[in-house]
Structure formats: C-alpha cells, structure tokens
C-alpha cells in the first residue's frame, strides 16, 4: 500500500493530464484545470516543508554543537524575525495579523518585512552575486588556459559578445568603412547571439526536451520510482 497507491496516483494524474490535452470535452478539461490548482497548493506546502526542514536541520546542528554551530543561531534568528514580521504586519499590499501596522509604518517608513527585504536581504543578495564577478574571472582564466579548439571558440565568443555589448566595441571598430560594416563588433556580437548561439541553445533545448519527455513517461508508467524513497 505504501508504494502501490502513490504509483497509481502518479499514473492516473499523469495520464488524465495528457489525455485532457487531446480530448477537449467534459470532464477532462475541468479535471486537468482542478489538478493544476491542487498542484499549486501542494507545491506551496512543499516550499513550507523545505523552510521547516531548514529550521530543523539548523536546530540539530546547534543542539549537537557541530562545527561553527554558533553561526547557525543567526540563521534561525533571522529566519524567525523575517517570518514573524511578515505574519504580524504583512507585506506591502497584504495585511498581517496586526493589520497594516500604520504606527510602525509611520515610524520606519516601510512595513518591517519590506524594510528587512529592502535594506538587508536585497543588499546581501546583490553583493553575494556580484562577488561572483571576481570568481568568474579566475574561472575564465582556468577554462581558457586549455589550448584546444573548443576552449578557443569559447574564449572568442565570450570576448566578442562582451566587447560588442560595451561602448569599447563601438570605439574599436567604429572607424571601419561602410563596406566592412559586418566586422563592426556590435554586429559580430549580434550575429553570434542570433545564429551560432541560437543553434547551440536549440540543440540543448531539443536534447533536454526529449530527455524530459522520456523521464516523464518513465515516471507515469512507474518505471522510475526513486521519488518514493528507499523504504
């Protein structure tokens, strides 16, 4: 029962959704529409499960005093503060348990949840990703150092696209006569993006698409069962 019923649910739901696409009559359209709404609700609970699991894992790390356990207290505190601010005073357009918190908004300029988002989360997020600008440079050096045709193509495409999208590209090739305009760096960059890049992306999309179709069929037919766990 622990494994068979989930397999039956997966099969029935998957088959109904595929059939509904080809049978535009009741009840298939209604069932597939309702199933998609259910999916959204359960996926919402899955996100909450993820957050609660993060809380649980960090709590265990603190309880058993694992390496650097002191820092995980901050994770729990910042998580709790963000959640409580959101639940008590709501978000920009949504009232919380205490309503819209007019007094606190007058004092802070924003709701506490939005204040934390704008003044802490957004800065942390932008800085964390901007940090990658430094690491991407060292990664590029390591990637391009391999003197093969493939790595040279990668390097040439990256440099041409970057130069073509900056004012430097226009300055470097701006002097070219009208008959050689196709060698203008912004045009070369546009050409790479429009044709060879699209070709590569299309090949990846078709390959990945076929892979996803195959995996979906394996799951619906019950051949792929790893999502049920080992027990």
């Amino acid at each position, binding site marked *: 029962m622990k494994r068979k*019923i*989930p397999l039956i649910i*997966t099969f029935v*739901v*998957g088959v*109904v*959704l595929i059939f509904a*696409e080809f049978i535009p009559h009741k009840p298939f359209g209604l069932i597939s529409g309702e199933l998609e709404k*259910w*999916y959204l*609700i359960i996926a*919402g*609970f899955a*996100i909450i*499960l*993820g957050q*609660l699991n993060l809380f649980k894992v960090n709590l265990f790390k603190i309880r058993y005093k694992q390496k650097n356990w002191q*820092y995980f207290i901050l*994770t729990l505190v910042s*998580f709790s503060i*963000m959640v409580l601010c*959101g639940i008590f005073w*709501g978000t920009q357009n*949504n009232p919380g348990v205490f309503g819209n918190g007019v007094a606190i908004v*007058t004092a*802070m*300029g924003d709701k506490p949840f939005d204040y934390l988002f704008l*003044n*802490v989360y957004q800065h*942390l*997020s932008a800085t*964390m990703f*901007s940090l*990658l*600008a430094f690491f991407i440079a060292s990664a590029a050096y390591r990637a391009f150092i391999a003197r093969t045709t493939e790595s040279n*193509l*990668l390097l040439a*495409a*990256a440099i*041409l*696209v970057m130069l073509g*999208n*900056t004012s430097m590209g226009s300055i470097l090739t701006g002097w070219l006569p009208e008959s050689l305009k196709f060698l203008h760096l912004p045009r070369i960059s546009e050409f790479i993006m429009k*044709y*060879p890049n*699209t*070709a*590569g992306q*299309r*090949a*990846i*999309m*078709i390959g990945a698409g*076929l892979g*996803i*179709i195959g*995996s979906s069929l394996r*799951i619906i037919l019950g051949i792929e069962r790893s999502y*049920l*766990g080992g027990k």
Partner: protein
Amino acid sequence: MTHFFSVLGIWLGALFTFAIFSFLYKDNPFYKIAEQIFVGLSAGYWFVYTIFFILMPNLFNPLLQDFAVNWIKLIPAVLGILMLLRLIPSIDWVSRFPIALVIGTTSGIFFLRYLKSDVINQLTATIMNPFQGADWVTVVGQILLIIGTLTGVIYFYFSKKHEGAFGVTAKIGIYFLMVSFGAAFGYTAMARISLLIGRLQFLLGDWLGIINP
C-alpha cells in the same frame, strides 16, 4: 524617526556589503555571519511569500469566502498537511501520496509542454529555407543555424559511438555548443560586473555621498 530608520537601513546595507566582500581576502567570521543571515532571511522571505501569494489566494481565501463552492480544495489542503508529515520520521511515508500527485501532475504537464515548446516548435523554427534572406550575412547565419542545430542534436545522441562521419558531425556540434557557452559566459560575466558596479554605486553614492548615484 523615519530618518533614523532610513540612515540605519543604508548603514546595514553598507556593513553587510563589506562583510560579504571580506570573503575576497579569505573566509572569516564577518562573512559567515552575513552568509547565515542571508540564508535565514531568504528562507523567511520565501516562507512568507508562499503564505501570502500562493496559499492565501489559492486555498485559504476561497475556503473562507465560499466554502460550499470551494470545499473540494480541502483535498489538496489535507494532502499538503500530509506533505508536512515528512518531518516526522516514523510516519514520513504518508508524504508519498501528495508527492505522487505533484510528480504525476508535473510529469503530465512537462510531457506536453516540452514536447510542444522544446521539440516541435524548435524543429519547426529550424526547418526553413536558409537562402531566403535580405543579405548574404543573413543567409550565412541561417545556414549556420541549421547546421548548428542538427549537429548539436547529433552530439546529444549517445546510443551510437561517436566515430567516423558520425563523430565528425558530433564534433562540429560541440563547436557550436562551445560558441553558445562562450556567449552565455560573456553575458553572465557582464551581468555580474554590472551588479558589482551597482554595489560600488551604493557604497560611494548612497552611503558615502561621494558620487551622485
């Protein structure tokens, strides 16, 4: 009071920016503190977002506003609660039922969506007359587009050993993929650098007031 919180917000932003950038020297307590706060706030943000923007409009509001019509939403609500039971190891198997529904729905939707958008539509766009172009650059580009797509797809065919004529075709496919990765790399590098410029503008403009942001 508003001014105080406004200034405090800028200082918090600046301090956390420096804490993250300190990682460029080496891993240190300031970075670790900022990193864990980022993880916690991020998780908290998505928790609140899920409640206000997914569960309230799709579940709680319909149930509270018109229960007689929307009672059927109790089924996904119960399945959602069963999903949360995964946190209790002794009865975590119960969560397989909602997972099965999510996996089944995802498989059904993805099967059709990817068949249409990633396979049929992409093939339709590729099968064209390459010589229909305004100038020779477009014609060359379209020929490259067709060759690149076909050879790229051949590269992803692993059921046959890549040797002989098949291997050469697959090799040409790799070249197109490399150009594609290079272009993607160029764009990613530019996006990161523009974020870095944004951070410097914040520090020198909003925080120190040296430049006009």
